[in-house]
């Protein structure tokens, strides 16, 4: 019998290796897998590359992981926020590497990883400093930059409900990067509000099919925080 439900969050995350690339869901705090990040801090993996839209808010979640000095590099679209003081301090001290990627390219590059696309020509960022020295091409009168997939060793995401096959549904705009990251990582670990019986999710409404999910933990919903 397939049972992807882990009964301990520490167990779910125990094999994350030093140097891993970890995709971390969430847009601000919506969809941020706070419990999994806390468990990752306890687990102790270091020298991590984090891929996430933001670089942490306040002192919890991703910010706490950064503060614990476990992150070598962060790939994100929007590190600078009113409450990103942890990241700001590390960055100004030269203690963390930053790669800024336009938000849609971040999403599409992970989508490409999940869908087996080798590279794609993308119009976003053409002619800007974020296109760097990458290959460009004019196609049908429009200019494009060649973008490569971002694969994760691990994805840590938050969903609303799961069944034991790992099928997921999300809640409102907390969906954000979850489905894309689930498909882009070798091992996808999900914290959910509720585990339901197999058959308890409508097959028409499943957003992430279980094929993309390796482990699920039911976490008491943390008090969501305003940005």
């Amino acid at each position, binding site marked *: 019998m397939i049972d992807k439900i882990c009964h301990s969050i520490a167990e779910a995350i125990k094999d994350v290796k030093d140097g891993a690339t970890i995709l971390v869901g969430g*847009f*601000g*705090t*919506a*969809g941020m897998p706070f419990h999994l990040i806390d468990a990752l801090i306890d687990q102790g993996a270091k020298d991590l590359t984090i891929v996430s*839209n933001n670089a942490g808010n306040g002192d919890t979640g991703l910010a706490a992981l950064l503060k614990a000095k476990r992150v070598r590099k962060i790939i994100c*679209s*929007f*590190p*600078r*926020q009113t409450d990103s003081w942890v990241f*700001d301090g590390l*960055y*100004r001290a030269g203690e963390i590497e*930053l790669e*800024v*990627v*336009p*938000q*849609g*390219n*971040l*999403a*599409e590059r*992970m*989508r490409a990883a999940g869908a087996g696309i080798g590279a794609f020509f*993308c*119009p*976003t*960022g*053409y*002619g*800007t*400093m*974020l296109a760097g020295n990458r290959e460009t091409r004019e196609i049908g009168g429009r*200019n494009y930059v060649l973008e490569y997939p971002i694969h994760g060793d691990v994805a840590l995401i938050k969903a609303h409900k799961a069944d034991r096959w790992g099928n997921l549904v*999300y*809640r*409102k*705009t*907390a*969906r*954000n*990067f*979850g*489905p*894309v990251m689930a498909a882009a990582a070798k091992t996808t670990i999900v914290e959910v509000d509720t585990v339901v019986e197999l058959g308890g999710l409508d097959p028409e409404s499943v*957003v992430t099919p279980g094929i993309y999910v390796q482990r699920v933990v039911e976490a008491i919903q943390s008090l*969501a*925080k*305003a*940005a």
Partner: protein
Amino acid sequence: MQRLTREQIAARVAKDIPSGAYVNLGIGLPTLVANALSPEREVILHTENGLLGMGPAPTKGEEDWDLINAGKQAVTTLPGAAFFHHADSFGMMRGGHLDICVLGAFQVSQNGDLANWHTGAADAIPAVGGAMDLAIGAKQTWIMMEHVTKEGQHKLVDVCTYPLTGKSCVSRIYTDLAVIDVTPQGFSLVELIPGLDLTAIAALTGATLYDGRKSGECN
């Protein structure tokens, strides 16, 4: 002459948005446009973090922090709303499905280049978010900004000196003084606030300004 307030610029932008249009309002100043759109017109608002049919802010105490906009403010949904993931949301932009996006700007050049994400300062932490995707994705990119900086420097310029967000992507600019189109000839005046003359607006504009109202140059 009475400069438009932020709310008045928002109202002026809103006047040009057709009923039923799909629109993304950037963070900052453009957010004000939402309040100037009457619900009967059914303009459908897109937020990059995965929602079409975004409604107004909830009443205080009713916030759901799983339901936010690009600026991480609590919002609501309207009947007819739909949620989707980030790759779909940005595919929607990049694929040219949004009719209009309204963005703020540091600088816009006469060929429609936009700079709105980075001041170029050496110690600034770069953060682009969805600005580059929006700038080049929507069918029309409109800019909403003060005509000049607080220090009186031009924001409508010959060539942008700040790092670009997108090339040749702006079609129209709404400021506290004027409405200006970006045309193959360059900046073209569409509308001027009462009490301001052509010489004055031209002086406040850092590139040649044509008078689109009568097909002549302003200066």
